[in-house]
């Protein structure tokens, strides 16, 4: 990669930024034809995509890291120098490929999905801004710039969730996403300060070197790692900050596919991977990562079982899979988590596109009003099923390979977490095929006439389906693993077919198949009705339907009782009584004194004269006494 000109690297995030500036400022102000903005965005993203893929191919030939010096942004005091630069290592390139591919596919898909909406320029300018922010987050060599990009993707998420801001739910969901991720950002910022305090630099490599050299104390490393992870918990919607992601489904579906399935929510996982040398030095931080990931995976998968909204199922599935990634990083190292991130991005974006395609023709997200769409939308159905099979982890699809690695690393180190992962495998297969049978199987229950989506939506879905099936094969000979520091030497065929020599493979495949069969028995054949099952376990069902009461806990107990009626009420009273009280008291004291003193001015001329004479007399007396 050393022979590539530096400008190429700058162009990757630079082009979407240029597209944003032109589309947002130029076209929106000038009110030029809407579709010109879409075209510009897509061209810019295509260029970024081509460059990223080119970098990816170069990386496969010769893996190496390249540091690109940029410019000095600012310096303050002695020793605080912030330089903007790019750090391009294999991890970066993998993320670049994922982000630019999904972004491009989603933009093409959006042309079809959003064509009846107003504000196309606004939509595409935000998508471009998001692409820029995400790419610069991935490429930055500097934690401070990374934090800025981190906030920028959060902003774009807010803007795009609230794209239909005239709908109160969308506005509310956008606000919720922004606030809850902000709680996590606090942890990131704190970790940033701890690290700068300990090492005196924001440079990622510099921090890693300082940590490796033992300059930073062990407690500082642990706290910094936990802070960074807390940031990732917010962004990647991990337990206990997961509640914003399902609500974020109020945004347009392509946005959900891009931001809330494949890229931005994976930024948290990427952050942990980027700072992995720090985590490596703190056993406890890694354990926290793995445990939180495991809890999230199981928790979200159980909620996904009972949701009726197709996007909500996918949202909880995303949370669950992000938990998988965290668990993979915590137990198996960077490459396990990132490999799952890589495959998950493709099949989850595909599933969201499928859900979008379905709702595009049925005008609903409620699966109870769908059914029988398999015949009416065959291509959507086939691609969706491919994605679902990949997500369920069936051989030889992408999800299978990455999930196997997570299972393997869990089996080696943590038996309890391994149990959780296995349970989640079963649940995942079940809820995904519940969606498939409810949506595409049976008879159509809604109104209107569903029809297949236009080609501009189907083409990206077909491409994504191919990727969702094949992305895992990239690692069949250990390519991705070796890029990310896990050496393994075996051939392609052993990578793909050799898995059947492990008993673990059979266990997970059987569990996934059992999940699919159960979904088939319940939702397709109706051998035992879901209604009976839910009435049998009413308490469990209501617990799941209410999503473990997390929203109620946060809104009513923490938000309303503890904060609004507790802490904030205290502040309010303190403000009203003490601060306002002091000011108002002073004012009313002045006013009272005035009302007393003004009696003296009664308008009677001779009173004034008398007072005046008394004053003069007193002064004279005093003067005489002193003398």
């Amino acid at each position, binding site marked *: 990669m050393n022979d590539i000109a530096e400008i190429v690297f700058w162009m990757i995030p630079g082009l979407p930024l240029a597209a944003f500036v032109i589309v947002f400022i130029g076209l929106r102000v000038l009110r030029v034809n809407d579709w010109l903005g879409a075209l510009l965005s897509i061209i810019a993203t295509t260029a970024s995509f081509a460059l990223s893929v080119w970098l990816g191919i170069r990386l496969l030939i010769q893996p190496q890291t390249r540091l690109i010096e940029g410019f000095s942004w600012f310096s303050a005091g002695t020793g605080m120098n912030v330089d903007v630069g790019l750090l391009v290592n294999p991890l970066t390139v993998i993320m670049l490929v994922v982000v630019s591919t999904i972004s491009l596919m989603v933009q093409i898909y959006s042309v079809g999905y959003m064509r009846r909406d107003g504000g196309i320029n606004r939509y595409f300018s935000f998508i471009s801004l998001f692409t820029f922010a995400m790419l610069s987050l991935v490429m930055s060599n500097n934690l401070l710039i990374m934090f800025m990009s981190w906030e920028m993707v959060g902003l774009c998420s807010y803007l795009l969730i609230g794209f239909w801001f005239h709908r109160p739910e969308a506005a509310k969901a956008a606000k919720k996403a922004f606030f809850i991720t902000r709680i996590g950002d606090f942890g990131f910022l704190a970790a940033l300060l701890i690290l700068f305090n300990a090492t005196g630099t924001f440079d990622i490599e510099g921090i890693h070197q300082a940590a490796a050299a033992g300059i930073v104390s062990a407690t500082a490393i642990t706290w910094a790692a936990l802070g960074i992870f807390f940031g990732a918990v917010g962004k990647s919607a991990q337990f206990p900050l997961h509640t914003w992601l399902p609500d974020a489904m109020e945004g347009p579906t392509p946005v959900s596919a891009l931001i809330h399935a494949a890229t931005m929510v994976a930024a948290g996982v990427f952050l942990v991977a980027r700072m992995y040398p720090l985590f490596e030095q703190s056993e406890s931080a890694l354990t926290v990562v793995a445990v939180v990931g495991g809890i999230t995976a199981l928790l979200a998968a159980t909620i996904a079982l009972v949701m009726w909204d197709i996007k909500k199922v996918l949202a909880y599935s995303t949370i669950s899979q992000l938990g998988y990634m965290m668990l993979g990083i915590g137990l198996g190292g960077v490459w396990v988590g990132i490999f799952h991130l890589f495959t998950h991005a493709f099949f989850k974006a595909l599933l969201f596109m499928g859900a979008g395609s379905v709702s595009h023709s049925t005008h609903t997200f409620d699966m109870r009003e769908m059914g029988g769409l398999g015949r009416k939308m065959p291509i959507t159905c086939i691609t969706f099923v491919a994605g679902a099979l990949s997500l369920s982890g069936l051989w030889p699809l992408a999800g299978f390979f990455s999930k196997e690695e997570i299972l393997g690393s869990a089996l080696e180190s943590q038996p309890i977490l391994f149990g959780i992962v296995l349970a989640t495998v079963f649940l995942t297969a079940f809820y995904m095929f519940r969606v498939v049978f409810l949506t595409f199987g049976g008879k159509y229950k809604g109104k209107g006439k569903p029809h297949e989506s236009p080609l501009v939506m189907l083409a990206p879905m077909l491409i994504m389906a191919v990727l969702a099936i094949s992305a895992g094969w990239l690692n069949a000979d250990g390519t991705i693993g070796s890029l990310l520091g896990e050496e393994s030497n075996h051939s392609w065929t052993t990578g793909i077919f050799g898995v059947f020599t492990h008993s673990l493979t059979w266990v997970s495949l059987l569990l996934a198949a059992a999940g699919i069969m159960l979904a088939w028995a319940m939702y397709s054949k109706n051998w035992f009705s879901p209604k009976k099952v839910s009435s049998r376990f009413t308490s469990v069902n209501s617990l799941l339907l209410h999503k473990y009461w997390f929203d109620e806990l946060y809104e009513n107990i923490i938000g309303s009782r503890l904060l609004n009626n507790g802490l904030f009420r205290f502040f309010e009273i303190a403000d009203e009584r003490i601060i306002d009280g002091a000011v108002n008291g002073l004012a009313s004291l002045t006013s009272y004194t005035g009302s007393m003193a*003004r009696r003296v*001015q*009664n*308008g*009677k001329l*001779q009173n004034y*004269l008398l007072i005046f*004479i008394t004053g003069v007399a007193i002064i004279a007396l005093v003067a005489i006494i002193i003398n």
Partner: protein
Amino acid sequence: MPGLEHYLILSGLLFCIGLAGAVIKRSAIVILMCIEIMLTGVNIAMVAFSRFITPVELTGQIFTVFIIVVAAAEIAIGLAIILALYRNRNTIDTQKIDLLKW
């Protein structure tokens, strides 16, 4: 032959009488008259001081002439104000003229 102190006692008496009248009386015209008495008291003190302390220079006398002139002007204006007041309010009782208050 009366000395300085006699003049000063007379001057003080006149000033106090005038002052008492200005504070006590209600009629605005009487108050004006009382002020004139006070001024007269002051004038007597001026002339007396001039005569007994600096007999050659006539500073006190000149000052007195000034005060008499200013007092005349003041009376002219004061009477004009009282006249206007009477036309407006039909009274010159200072206790009743107390609009300009809190």
